């Protein structure tokens, strides 16, 4: 009988349980384009969460290749990816499509500094999953200029942070930085002997902190896409997994921050 209701129809709909989350606007989520910068540990978790949350269009940016030392915290990377030194963005895109065959994933195997400005115009939201301050600052300034909301995550061992930047109203990543950030940034450049030789501290990193920070990033992103921005993090969230402490730290907009002076605000 055509048009008859089947008793199991609720189990046939992939997004039925998501639609039960009252504040979540699944139509908005399904039509959103997300830009994920960095396909390392945070990038793996963020893409997994975005795919399972129903996004259909994701662009992944990363020029790096899978190494065996990534395998303690990167959900989608396998031994064979490390052995064949495959591109991180390529592997992540391939495995994310396995989660949802309807997902369209574009990859840009570039540094964020090489992205065309139009990339910041064609997406609705950006996720910062980077491992260095220079790239963060670049993403921050371009996203702010193009009025692209940015949700940045960072980890260090069992600590992590999340900051939501919504231009032109909120403080940006640079507003929360000081000379110690710039010193590490400068050191990285001053030690550059060639394109592949630079100062790069090997940071402690493990999956439980990464999972928590990436989950917070994506949840804040879903709030923004669902027009629930008033429920978003207003400040910088610091998480300490050893002491089980979460601090929401107030960041003031820096009147001298060049990002705001040069933006469209």
């Amino acid at each position, binding site marked *: 009988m055509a048009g008859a209701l089947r008793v199991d129809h609720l189990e046939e709909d992939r997004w039925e349980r998501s639609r039960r989350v009252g504040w979540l606007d699944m139509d908005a989520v399904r039509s959103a384009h997300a830009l994920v910068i960095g396909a390392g540990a945070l990038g793996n978790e963020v893409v997994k969460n975005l795919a399972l949350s129903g996004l259909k269009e994701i662009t992944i940016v990363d020029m790096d290749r899978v190494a065996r030392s990534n395998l303690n915290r990167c959900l989608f990377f396998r031994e064979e990816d490390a052995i064949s030194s495959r591109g991180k963005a390529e592997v992540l895109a391939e495995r994310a499509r396995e989660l949802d065959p309807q997902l369209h994933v574009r990859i840009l195997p570039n540094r964020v500094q090489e992205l065309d400005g139009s990339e910041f115009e064609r997406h609705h939201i950006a996720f910062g*999953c980077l491992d260095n301050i220079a790239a963060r600052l670049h993403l921050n300034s371009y996203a702010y200029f193009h009025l692209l909301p940015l949700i940045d995550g960072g980890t260090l061992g069992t600590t992590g942070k999340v900051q939501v930047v919504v231009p032109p109203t909120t403080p940006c990543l640079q507003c929360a930085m000081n000379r110690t950030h710039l010193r590490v940034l400068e050191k990285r450049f001053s030690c550059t002997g060639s394109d592949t030789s630079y100062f790069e501290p090997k940071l402690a990193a493990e999956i439980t902190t990464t999972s928590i920070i990436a989950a917070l990033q994506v949840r804040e992103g879903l709030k923004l896409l669902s027009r629930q921005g008033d429920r978003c993090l207003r400040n910088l969230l610091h998480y300490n997994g050893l002491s089980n402490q979460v601090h929401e730290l107030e960041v003031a907009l820096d009147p001298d921050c060049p990002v705001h002076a040069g933006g469209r605000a």
Partner: protein
Amino acid sequence: MTVRVRVRNAETGSTVDMELEGENTVQEIIEGAAGYWEKDAGAYVIRKGKKLLRGQQTVQEANIIMSDDLELIPDPEGG
């Protein structure tokens, strides 16, 4: 005017007292404390209660007063 504050190391819980002048900057406090604890090169921030203090602010501008408790926190920059 000199103010005496206590800076806590968020990683270890240890503390150090610092004497500050009104024109000292927050980044000088960060560098002084990080140097005292021989921290690795890296990014650090300081909080006073719920406020993240801006590096360029002076002690006066940041409203740091006698007996304030500050905390030095490593800024997680890995991904």
